[in-house]
C-alpha cells in the first residue's frame, strides 16, 4: 500500500493557519515548528517553545510528534530550546498576497479615480454622452447647464446632497429658453399653480379641476433628455410622455380622448367680441351704410373676405386695419356717445373764487363754477396721495347742492381746503412737467403707487406719460400758475391744453384718422387698465356701477376688446387679441392644412340659418370647408360683451382669462368625432402634439446669455 502523504489526524498533522499573512520559507523541506512571526520575521530558529511544568519547577520540551517529538537534550533551565535551526526568509501566504494585491489595486483605482475627477480631463470623464446638435453648436460647457460644474469635485457632493439640482438646471434652461409669461419652470407646463388651475378648469370644462395634478414638480430633463448623442432630437416626445402625468389616460385620440368642451371653440372667451350674424347676415349682405361703396368692392359676402390665413397658415383672424376699419374707422360709437368722450382728461383745473388764489398765481383765477368740477379718474390717479384734498373740498357741499353760491358761502373756512387742493394740483403738474424726464417718470410712478398700490413698469411709464404729454403739462403749468398767457390751443396735436376749459387732454389717435396708424392709441391702452384698477379700488365695479362709473369713452373700447381678470386680480384689457390667447393655450390649430381638403362630405345635413344662407357659402368649395367645422346657428351673439363680462365677474362666472364666460356664439361647437374622422391611425397624424403644446407661449431662444459662449470654447461632447 502506498504511503499517504497527507495525514489529518490531530497528532499526525499540525493545524495549517492559512489565514496568516506569512508562511515559513522552508515549505519545500517542511516548515519549521514555530512558523514566522506576525510581521514576517522568522520564528523558527528553535525546535519548540518549551512549556513550564505546571506542578514542578523547570520546563519540558514541547516539540510536536510530526517534528520528531521531545528532544533528548531538553530545554535549558531558563526555558530555552536546545535545538537551533537555520533561519529562513518567510514568504507571503496566499491570503497575504491577496491582501497586498487588493490593497494595491484599491489604492491604484482610487488614485486613478481622483486623477480623473480632479484632473484637467474631469469634464470629459463625467460627461455621460454627446450633446444634442442644438446644444453642441452653441459650444456649451458643463457649467452652462449644471451648477455643479462651476465648482470642484468636492462641491459635487454638496450638490448631490443639496436637492436643488433640478431647480438650478431648470433656471439655467430658463435663462436661454423663454417659456411663458407665467414661468414656473419646474411646474407642469412651466406654468404657475394658479395658471394651471385656470387652464384646467377652462379647458376641461371643470372636469377634474378639483384634483391637483399628479406631479407637483418636474425637471426639464424628464422630457428633454440630453447627452444622448448629436442626432438626438430634444423635443421628440411620445404620447406616453403626456399620458404619464395626466390623470385620464386613453388609447388614442379617436379612442378615449376627452370630448371637447361644449360649443368649443366658439363659445370660449374670445379676445374681441364679434357678432357674425349681425355683420354677415345684416350689414355685409346689405352693403349699406356709409361704408357701402367700400364693402361693395369686396364683392359677394364670403368668409374669406375677413378670414385669411396668416403667414404661418395657423390663424385666420381679421385685422382691424384691413377689415374693421372699412366701417369703423373714426366712427366707433357706443350707446350713442360721441367720439369726443373717448379723450382722457389728465388735468381738470377747477376755478375758485379769487380769494382762494394763493399769492402770485395767475390772475386768471376767475370765478369759475366749482359745481362743474368733477375731476377725472385719470386725475385722481395722478394726484396720488393728494387726491384727498379734492375729496375733502367736495365733502363740504353735498353733491346735489353744489353751486357757485354754495362754495362761496363756505367763506373763509373753506379757504384752507381750497388752497390745499390748488397747491396739490400745482405740485402735481410741477413734478410731472419737470424738464428731467427720468425725474418726471419717477414722480409719476410714485403717484401711481400712492393711488393704486402698484408702480407701473418703466415701459408702462413711457406709455402713460409720453414726452409730448410732459411738454403739454409744462405748458399748462405755465399758463395756469405762472405769469403770462395761456399756451396756444394745441389744435390737432394729440395732447392738448384746453385753455378755455382748463383741461389737459389726450385725443386718441384713431379719432384723428392718423394716416400711419388708425387704431390702437398706446397711451389710451396703457391708461385704461389703471383706470379700471382705480375704479375697483374705490368701489367694486358691479351692476349699474359698470355703466355709470366707467367713462363712456372707455366703454366704447371695451365694446369689442374683452376685459380679463388677471392672475393678480386686476382687470386687464385684451388689446393684442389672440396673441395673448395663443401664448396661454395648451392646444393649437393650424388652418392651412385643412383648407386644401375637401371636408364638405363631413358636414351634416342641418340646413343653414337664414343669415348664413348666401349664394357664396354654398358655391365656394373653400367655404363649404369652413362650414363643415364652423356651423352657423340661429343664435344671436351677445351684443354687449363689455357688460356681460362685468356681470359675469360679479356672479363669479369669469374669474379667469380662459374660462368660458357664458358668451354665446353664432356657431355651434366642433365635436371630437368630427376631427377623429380624419385624425386616426393610418390617416392623419393624431398624436398629442398634433393639437397640443407643452409649453404655451414658448418663445424664441435668447440669442445670447451671459456666461455662455456662442460658437466658442470647447464644444460639448
Amino acid at each position, binding site marked *: 500500500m*502506498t504511503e*499517504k*502523504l*497527507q495525514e*489529518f489526524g490531530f497528532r499526525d498533522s499540525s493545524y*495549517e493557519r492559512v489565514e496568516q499573512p506569512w*508562511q515559513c520559507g522552508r*515549505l*519545500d*523541506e*517542511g*516548515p519549521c515548528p514555530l512558523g514566522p512571526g506576525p510581521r514576517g520575521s522568522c520564528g523558527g530558529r528553535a525546535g519548540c517553545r518549551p512549556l513550564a511544568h505546571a506542578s514542578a519547577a523547570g520546563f519540558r520540551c514541547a516539540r510536536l510528534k510530526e517534528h520528531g517529538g521531545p528532544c533528548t537534550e531538553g530545554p535549558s533551565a531558563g526555558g530555552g530550546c536546545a535545538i537551533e535551526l537555520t533561519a529562513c526568509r518567510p514568504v507571503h*501566504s*496566499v491570503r497575504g*498576497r*491577496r491582501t497586498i*494585491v*487588493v490593497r494595491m*489595486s*484599491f489604492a491604484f*483605482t*482610487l488614485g486613478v*479615480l481622483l486623477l*480623473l*475627477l480632479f484632473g484637467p480631463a474631469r469634464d*470629459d*470623464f*463625467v*460627461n*455621460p*454622452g*454627446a450633446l444634442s446638435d442644438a446644444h453642441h453648436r452653441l459650444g456649451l460647457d*458643463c457649467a452652462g447647464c*449644471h451648477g*455643479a*460644474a462651476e465648482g470642484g469635485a468636492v*462641491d*459635487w*457632493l454638496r*450638490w*448631490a446632497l443639496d436637492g436643488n*439640482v*433640478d431647480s438650478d*438646471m431648470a433656471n439655467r434652461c430658463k435663462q436661454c429658453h423663454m417659456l411663458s409669461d407665467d414661468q414656473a419652470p419646474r411646474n407642469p407646463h412651466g406654468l404657475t399653480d394658479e395658471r394651471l388651475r385656470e387652464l384646467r378648469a377652462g379647458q376641461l370644462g371643470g372636469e377634474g379641476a378639483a384634483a391637483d395634478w399628479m*406631479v407637483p414638480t*418636474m*425637471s426639464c*430633463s*424628464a*422630457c428633454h*433628455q440630453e*447627452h*444622448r*448623442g448629436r442626432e438626438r432630437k430634444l423635443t421628440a416626445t*411620445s404620447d*406616453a*410622455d403626456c*399620458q*404619464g*402625468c395626466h390623470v385620464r389616460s386613453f388609447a388614442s385620440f379617436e379612442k378615449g380622448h376627452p370630448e371637447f368642451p361644449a360649443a368649443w371653440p366658439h363659445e370660449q372667451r374670445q379676445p374681441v367680441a364679434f357678432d357674425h350674424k349681425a355683420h354677415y347676415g345684416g350689414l355685409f349682405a346689405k352693403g349699406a351704410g356709409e361704408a357701402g361703396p367700400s364693402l361693395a368692392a369686396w364683392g359677394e359676402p364670403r368668409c374669406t373676405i375677413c378670414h385669411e390665413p396668416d403667414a404661418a397658415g395657423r390663424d385666420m383672424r381679421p385685422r382691424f386695419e384691413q377689415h374693421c376699419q372699412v366701417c369703423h374707422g373714426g366712427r366707433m360709437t357706443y350707446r350713442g356717445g360721441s367720439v369726443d368722450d373717448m379723450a382722457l382728461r389728465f388735468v381738470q383745473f377747477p376755478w375758485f373764487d379769487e380769494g382762494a388764489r394763493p399769492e402770485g398765481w395767475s390772475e386768471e383765477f376767475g370765478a369759475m363754477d366749482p359745481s362743474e368740477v368733477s375731476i377725472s379718474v385719470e386725475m385722481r390717479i395722478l394726484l396720488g396721495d393728494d387726491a384727498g384734498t379734492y375729496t375733502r373740498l367736495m365733502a363740504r357741499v353735498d353733491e346735489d347742492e353744489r353751486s357757485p353760491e354754495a362754495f362761496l358761502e363756505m367763506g373763509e373756512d373753506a379757504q384752507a381746503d381750497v388752497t390745499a387742493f390748488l397747491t396739490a394740483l400745482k405740485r402735481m403738474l410741477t413734478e410731472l412737467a419737470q424738464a428731467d424726464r427720468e425725474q418726471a417718470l419717477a414722480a409719476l410712478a410714485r403717484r401711481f403707487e400712492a393711488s393704486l398700490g402698484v408702480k407701473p413698469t418703466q415701459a408702462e411709464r413711457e406709455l402713460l406719460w409720453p414726452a409730448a404729454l410732459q411738454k403739454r403739462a409744462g405748458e399748462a403749468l405755465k399758463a395756469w400758475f405762472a405769469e403770462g398767457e395761456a399756451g396756444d390751443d394745441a389744435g390737432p396735436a394729440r395732447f392738448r391744453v384746453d385753455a378755455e376749459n382748463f383741461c389737459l387732454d389726450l385725443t386718441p389717435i384713431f379719432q384723428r384718422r392718423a394716416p400711419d396708424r388708425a387704431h390702437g392709441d398706446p397711451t389710451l391702452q396703457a391708461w385704461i387698465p389703471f383706470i379700471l384698477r382705480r375704479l375697483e379700488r374705490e368701489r367694486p365695479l358691479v351692476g349699474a356701477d359698470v355703466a355709470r362709473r366707467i367713462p363712456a369713452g372707455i366703454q366704447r373700447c371695451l365694446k369689442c376688446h374683452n376685459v380679463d381678470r388677471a392672475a393678480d386680480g386686476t382687470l386687464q384689457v385684451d388689446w393684442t387679441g389672440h396673441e395673448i390667447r395663443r401664448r396661454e393655450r395648451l392646444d393649437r390649430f393650424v388652418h392651412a392644412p385643412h383648407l386644401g381638403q375637401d371636408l364638405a362630405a363631413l358636414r351634416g345635413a342641418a340646413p343653414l340659418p337664414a343669415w348664413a344662407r348666401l349664394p357664396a357659402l354654398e358655391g365656394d368649395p373653400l367655404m363649404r370647408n369652413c362650414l363643415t367645422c364652423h356651423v352657423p346657428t340661429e343664435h344671436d351673439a351677445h351684443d354687449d360683451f363689455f357688460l356681460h363680462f362685468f356681470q359675469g365677474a360679479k356672479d363669479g362666472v369669469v374669474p379667469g382669462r380662459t374660462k368660458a364666460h357664458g358668451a354665446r356664439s353664432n356657431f355651434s361647437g366642433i365635436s371630437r368625432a368630427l376631427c377623429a374622422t380624419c385624425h386616426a391611425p393610418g390617416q392623419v397624424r393624431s398624436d398629442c402634439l398634433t393639437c397640443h403644446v407643452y409649453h404655451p407661449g414658448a418663445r424664441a431662444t435668447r440669442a445670447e446669455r451671459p456666461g455662455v459662449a456662442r460658437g466658442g470654447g470647447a464644444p460639448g461632447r
Partner: protein
Amino acid sequence: MTRVFARRLRNGSILVAAIAGLLLWYGRQDDPLDQPQRVTGWLLVALVAFLALYSVRKKLAVVPLGSSATWLQWHVYIGLFGIVLFVTHNGWHAPTGTLESVLAVLFVLVTASGLGGLHVSRRIPPRLARRGEEVIYERVPAFIHRLAGRAQELALESVTKTRSRAIADFHAAELAGFLARPTDRLEHILGWGTAHRRREHAMAEFRTCLGPEETPVFDALTDLVRRKEDLDFHRANQGLLKYWFFVHVPLTHALLLFTAAHVVVVHAFGGGR
C-alpha cells in the same frame, strides 16, 4: 431529486420570477417621470453593496450572521439577478460616457470573474476528490520535496541493486527536473494531459529496455512520478480556487469606488432626479 437539485430548482425559480417581474415592471415604465433609471440605479447600488458584504461576512466568522453557505447562495443568485438589473439600468444600451463605460466594463469584469469563480468552485472540487489523495494546498511543496527525495533514493538504490546506471540516468535526464518542483499548472487546469502522455510514453518505452531486476525499482519510481502528477494537479486546481479571488475582489473594490463616483456625479449633475 437530490437536495442540491431541489435547492437549485427553488432558487432558480425565484430568480426567474424576479427577473420576469423586473422586466415586466420596466416594460411598463413608459412614463419618464417614473424615473425607472433612478429606481434601478439605487437597487443596483444596494445589490452591489450586499454582494460586497459577503467578503465582510467571511471575515466576521464569529458573528452569527448566517452560515457562509447561505450567504454564498444569496451572493450567487442576487449576483445573477444583478446582471439583468444592470442591463435594465442601462436601458439595454451601451453607455456612452467615459465614467459610465468604465463602470460598465468593471461590472462586466466583476460579473465574469464571479461567474468564473462560481464555475471553478463547482467543477474543481469533484475533480480533486476523484484524483489522488486529499492534500492541503500549502503543504504540496513539502510533499513534492519528499517525493523528489524518495525518487532520488530509488535512483541510487537501483545502481546498487542492479549494478546498472540506466534508471539513475533516466531519472537524472527525464524525471529529476519534473520531480523537483510543481509543474504543468496550465495543463492540469485545462485538462490537456499532453505532458503526462509524453512522460508516460517515455517511461513505457524505457521500461521495455529494463531487465527483471530493474523493473520493480522503475515501477516504484513510476508510482512516485504519478503521485507527483497528482500533487501538481491538486496544486494547480486548488490554486485556481484560491487565485480567482485575486481578480474578483480587487475588481469589486474598483467597482464600488466608481459606483460611488457615479452616484455623486449623477445626483450633482441632475441625472438622479
